[in-house]
């Protein structure tokens, strides 16, 4: 029985000592923790993967607006553009960005999504995992392995920081989702544990300080568009890490910095809609209109 896997260093040591991958160590650990089998753990993970794919599929075909009427038809707009003009980054970019908008818009119209780690950041992991897996023909088992690694990265970060905008800002929601995606993508593309953890650190470092200032207090502005942005951000981190580019600050220390930044961030910028985008002139006018 592995005693604890509470830091990335502990995770790396166990993987290297036993010559195992992150997902292998994790699924054994989780099975022991829950007093169940590895198969049972993978079945639960598969339910989430299937639900992620359903959300993408449904979201791609809908233009229904949210209750507030502010968002809901941007995925349609992006798909239409890619029909007439290719993205300069190619088909994978097109898939990731449209899948991200499809999922996050499905969320705001009260469709079924997977909170990963939260509802507001629900589109980053699925868009990267599914978009890339489709284009590189990655098997479902490999996708499950990637999702297990997503969970591991998030779990270890959540040991030090609550993954909630109200506690630590958007860096702890979309920021962490991007970091988890970067690590999982690096694994799917054959990266070793060093490259995986470097991808996580590179992605997270670049998002420290990201605030949570939702307009009208709703999971819409800027959350919707932030999802495709940070999905692509994860790809950048993964490409750098696969090239052997390393973080100078070890991942566990980056997580400490994330926690500290979250504590120092003003409560006015932590999901309370008391500052930032939420109190701009236009945002306040939208709020008046919505709540009158």
């Amino acid at each position, binding site marked *: 029985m592995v005693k604890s896997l509470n830091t990335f260093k502990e995770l790396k040591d166990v993987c290297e000592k036993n010559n195992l991958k992150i997902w292998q160590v994790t699924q054994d650990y989780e099975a022991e923790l*829950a007093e169940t089998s590895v198969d049972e753990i993978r079945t639960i993970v598969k339910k*989430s993967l299937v639900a992620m794919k359903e959300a993408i599929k449904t979201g791609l075909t809908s233009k229904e607006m949210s209750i507030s009427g502010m968002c809901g038809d941007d995925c349609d707009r992006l798909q239409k553009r890619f029909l007439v003009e290719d993205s300069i980054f190619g088909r994978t970019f097109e898939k990731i960005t449209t899948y991200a908008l499809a999922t996050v818009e499905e969320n705001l119209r009260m469709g079924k999504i997977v909170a990963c780690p939260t509802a507001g950041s629900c589109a980053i992991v699925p868009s990267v995992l599914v978009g890339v897996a489709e284009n590189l023909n990655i098997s479902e088992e490999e996708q499950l392995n990637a999702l297990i690694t997503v969970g591991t990265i998030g*779990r270890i970060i959540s040991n030090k920081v609550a993954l909630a905008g109200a506690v630590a800002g958007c860096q702890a929601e979309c920021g962490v989702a991007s970091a988890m995606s970067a690590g999982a993508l690096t694994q799917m593309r054959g990266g070793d544990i060093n490259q995986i953890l470097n991808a996580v650190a590179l992605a997270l470092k670049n998002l420290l300080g990201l605030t949570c200032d939702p307009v009208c207090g709703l*999971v819409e502005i800027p959350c919707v568009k932030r999802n495709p942005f940070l999905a692509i951000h994860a790809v950048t981190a993964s490409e750098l890490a696969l090239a052997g580019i390393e973080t100078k600050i070890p991942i566990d220390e980056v997580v400490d910095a994330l926690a500290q930044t979250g504590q120092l961030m003003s409560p006015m910028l932590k999901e309370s809609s008391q500052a930032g985008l939420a109190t701009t002139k236009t945002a306040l006018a939208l709020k008046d209109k919505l709540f009158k």
Partner: protein
Amino acid sequence: MKQSSIIDIISPIMVGPSSSHTAGAVRLGLLAKNIYNAVPKKVTFKLYNSYAQTGKGHGTDKGLLAGVLGLGVDDVRIRNIFESDIAKSIEYEFQYFEDFNRHPNAVDFIFEGERNLKISGNSVGAGEIEITKINDFSVNLTGKYNTLLLVYKDVPNMISRVTNSIHVNIASFHCDRSAKGQDASMCITVDGEINQKVIDFLSLIDDVYMISYIKKLES
């Protein structure tokens, strides 16, 4: 450190848009329903602060009602719950308040029917919830464990009589009373199941006014 699981990170599968304002609302409704444990005639929902202000845009009202009607957090019927036939089975009403002595995401459920019950709770983030009051007694229910709740006269030996009977491992234990010798409450969360015979037996104790076995949430 409490042990966490990867499953917490890649779940729940839920109807959007907000884990605290939608999924949390459904779970509060579900747990309140489990506590009331009967079909109510009418439910009044009192929403406070952020729940009152941004609740409509997040479908908090729909989530609370759906939960009371027994729908899970991933049930796509939540979106159109007000128009659905299941919502026609009870009367309901929403009221909105600002009260900064209450949690930002606070709600009271006023159940009316065979018996009347007021249940108060909060959505504390990431879909996690807490029921903090039942009528005037403070409790601490999160829906993660099966829970035995007793209201009884504050007399000696009540705790040992209860704990000696239930024969399961206790996860947490919380007592409260209005005043010495007056009404008291006991809230016990357990691993596993408490036998119905045990609950029937405990309900026969003279000084027990109310006993309720509240099932943990599946969703």
